[in-house]
């Protein structure tokens, strides 16, 4: 493959590229999807191709192909150059440059104890059928579905800095849902643990079949539950729920490409400006967010990003103050930084790498003895929320509204009854300022997000978040109703 990467880079250099990279991507996917008692899909997908990215006169070009003869590779690089020349017809005010990065030559392989592609397909299908059967055996469960989705990703990245990287990762994503119907009411309950960078051992650990009945029974409980009360009250949120809250209200607003306006037509912009680094109060002093693209099992732990930058760990928000941003080699110099934070990734060989959320987590509380029960015991009237549900946020990342997967009323420090149709609404910084207590490290849990959409043409990306249980005071609850 080295011969082909050298060829693509030579063509780009000869055409005057100040920077070029070529990314060969080999991807294998395996999906098993069960609806009710029917195996709707069991498949394996293989995809192999490459993309050449060139920077000519400060303008970008990109071309991809699935043809691997030398002539094809050279032609693809030439097409990338041609698109760069077209880009220069509507040039940037300041020509694009890449922040410096040392040349890396490395071969890395992510964690995978049990190759999911070696697990018999029948075993994987039977697991989902057993889980759905168990759910459907619970009275009032009208529907159930489950999905196992495995990806093996190999990227070979070479660039004109002299980097040559051979990187392999394996990802596993389980999903399971029961739907209860009672007296015209329909409510769902899900497996809420998210995905992981791991092999099939991750699926064995979470015991979908063993937990299926509990989740189905909770769906029934939810369908029979009272509706969400409306008013201002306190919230206790579990780590799996908080993953999505931080994803939308912390991860996306701190992407530098959004701050620069590059997502204005699609995903939107951000309430942050570059001058806010070091001074913006994002939340109260309890709030600490860390970027860690080396996180064990993290879906964003890719060793090197698609800019060829070695992945990093750094504080994003420290004691409630914004300290840094997610950057790429192109965006970092625009705000005067001379290195990238390693947040540039592409979905596939045919996609241009863009500024992407890293693994991002909330630090647990300093006092490890604080338990979730402690948080609940200090609430007179509030709601405890587990798992992810409805989620929506405005394009500048201020106004958000979230639901969840399971809800319990808290009255006088105790969980008193299940609820349904719970939503809460807040403004981002007001919300993070209202956090008054966080449980200890032993309650911290990760949650892998499998499908974060961004960019045009649209791209999917994955990353992991994490948190311990947190309490928030005085939040607007129950505003969403017919």
């Amino acid at each position, binding site marked *: 493959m080295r011969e082909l990467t050298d060829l693509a880079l030579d063509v780009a250099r000869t055409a005057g590229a100040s920077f070029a990279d070529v990314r060969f991507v080999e991807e294998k996917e395996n999906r098993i999807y069960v609806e*009710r*008692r029917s*195996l*709707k899909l*069991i*498949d*394996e997908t*293989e*995809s*192999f*191709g490459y993309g050449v990215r060139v920077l000519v006169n400060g*303008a*970008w070009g*990109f*071309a*991809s*192909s*699935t043809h691997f003869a030398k002539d094809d590779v050279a032609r693809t690089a030439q097409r*990338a150059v*041609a*698109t760069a020349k*077209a*880009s220069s*017809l*509507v040039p940037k*005010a300041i020509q694009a440059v890449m922040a410096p990065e040392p040349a890396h030559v490395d071969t890395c392989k992510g964690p995978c104890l049990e190759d999911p592609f070696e697990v018999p*397909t029948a075993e994987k*299908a*039977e697991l989902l*059928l057993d889980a759905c059967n168990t759910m459907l055996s619970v009275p009032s469960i*009208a*529907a159930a579905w489950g999905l196992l989705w495995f990806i093996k990703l190999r990227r070979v990245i070479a660039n004109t800095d002299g980097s040559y990287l051979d990187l392999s990762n394996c990802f596993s994503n389980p999903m399971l849902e029961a739907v209860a*119907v009672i007296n*015209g009411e*329909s*409510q769902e309950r899900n497996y809420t643990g998210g995905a992981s960078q791991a092999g099939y051992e991750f699926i064995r650990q979470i015991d979908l079949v063993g937990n299926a009945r509990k989740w189905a029974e909770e769906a029934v409980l939810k369908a029979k539950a009272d509706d969400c009360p409306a008013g201002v009250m306190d919230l206790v949120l579990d780590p799996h729920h908080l993953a999505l809250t931080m994803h939308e209200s912390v991860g996306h607003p701190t992407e530098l490409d959004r701050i620069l*306006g*590059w997502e*204005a*037509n*699609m995903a939107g912009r951000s*309430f942050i400006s570059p001058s806010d680094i070091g001074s913006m109060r994002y939340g109260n002093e309890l709030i600490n967010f860390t970027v860690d693209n080396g996180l064990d099992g993290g879906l964003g732990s890719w060793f090197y990003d698609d800019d060829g930058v070695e992945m990093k760990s750094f504080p994003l928000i420290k004691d409630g103050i914004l300290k840094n941003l997610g950057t790429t080699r192109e965006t970092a110099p625009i705000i005067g930084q001379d290195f990238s934070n390693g947040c540039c990734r592409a979905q596939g060989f*045919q996609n*241009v790498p863009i500024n992407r959320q890293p693994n991002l987590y909330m630090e647990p509380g300093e006092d490890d003895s604080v338990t979730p029960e402690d948080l609940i015991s200090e609430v007179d009237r509030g709601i405890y929320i587990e798992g992810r549900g*409805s989620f*929506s946020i*405005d*394009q*500048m*990342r*201020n*106004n958000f509204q979230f639901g969840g997967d399971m809800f319990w009323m808290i009255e006088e420090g105790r969980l008193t009854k299940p609820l349904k*149709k719970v*939503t809460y*609404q807040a403004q981002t910084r007001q919300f993070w300022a209202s956090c008054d207590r966080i449980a200890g490290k032993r309650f911290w849990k990760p949650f892998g997000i499998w499908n974060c959409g961004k960019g*045009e043409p649209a791209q999917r990306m994955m990353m992991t978040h994490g948190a311990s249980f947190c309490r928030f005071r005085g939040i607007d609850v129950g*505003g*969403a*109703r*017919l």
Partner: protein
Amino acid sequence: MMRKRNEIEALLDDVLSLVTAPHAQATFEYKDRLATRFAENAITQNLSGEEESISLTVAFGSRHGSSITNRIDTESLAKLVTRTEAIARNSPQDPEYVAPPGPQQYPVVPKRFFDDVLAIRPEVLAGSIGKVTTIAKADGYQASGLIEAGSSVRALANSNGLFAYDQHTDFSFSTTIHGPCGSGSASGYSNSKEGVNAGILGQKALQTAISAQNPETIEPGDYTVIMEPQAVIDFLVFLPRDMDARDADEGTTVFADKTGAKLFANRISISTEIDDPGLPAAPFGEDGLPARRTVWVKEGIIRRLRHDRFWAQHKNTEPDPIFQPIFISGGKGSVEDLVRNCRRGLLVKKLWYIRYVDRKELLLTGMTRNGLFLVENGKIVRPVGNLRFNESPVVFLQNVVSLSEPQYVGGWAKVPAIMSEGFTFSSTTDSL
């Protein structure tokens, strides 16, 4: 390079000839595209690429398996067949498996493939973008967006002798233009280059952006809304999923027990049309079954929900292979006519980040974006700040006051602007 139809047919025949399973279905897909992205009045990404793939599903009895590859060579295709058959042999029985259909007769749909799109080069796309960034810059505004041109082929063959082939071209442009305190957007889609004029769309987005500057905060609450066609399709985005017959029969959607019942206002009729020259349908859908015109809602009454092949067999009815393009009946006037007939309400240009709050009630939440205007006594009086809504499309389509003439929008619908009463907004935002 795009393969010719007869080459694709021969390729699929070759794949099927390697299959030993009694049932097999092979699908060839090809896509090439140019996509140029711009922001802050400059091109930020520019890509070109093409890819082809073959997917194969085989079944031994009711044990089925599938596989996809983008490596189209003799050795890889032989491996595809071997792998797919191995998956199928080891799969559990599927009680809902339906064998591939036999040969079909396909409708002749209006032309969807235009050579003028194939001739587009990156310089042409850059030229279109330049027209928009130039007018935005002239007013001190920032334009961003995406322009795409490409062609696609989909061909399907199965072991029962079916062969289906479709090719089409796509040309699309979307832009969002920001001023210091407000934004506007516009988009267009066509199968031909002539069908989309980036300059006109840029002007439209710019005019909205200029009108949207310095919005005043407005209290959330129930308002009469005039939703432009873009906002209408934004709000109805989950309709194809929610009109599934089996989900309704199992009681998990708002359409449970509603077939034959009146759910929407009299003026609302919803159909899938296949022969509109401005928005022709693909000639076939699920498993190569021919597209056909279908009326889903007639004068507010739910006439039909969408059946997949298994549920259609179970319910002794015909399957519904396609749902899009969607057409909603309209009136004769324009958006401006709706505004003239509105005593007090909000004109909504676009909705954003729409999600279910409760699927059974079809209660959705989301935000307004790129232009929200207060209408009083038949006139747009001022821009107002964006709002979050919590509302159901069912209520929206029940409370219809009036409809404009339908317009093509989004590349998948022809819908009117809709004026509807009692639309619930629940909170505000400072976001412009």
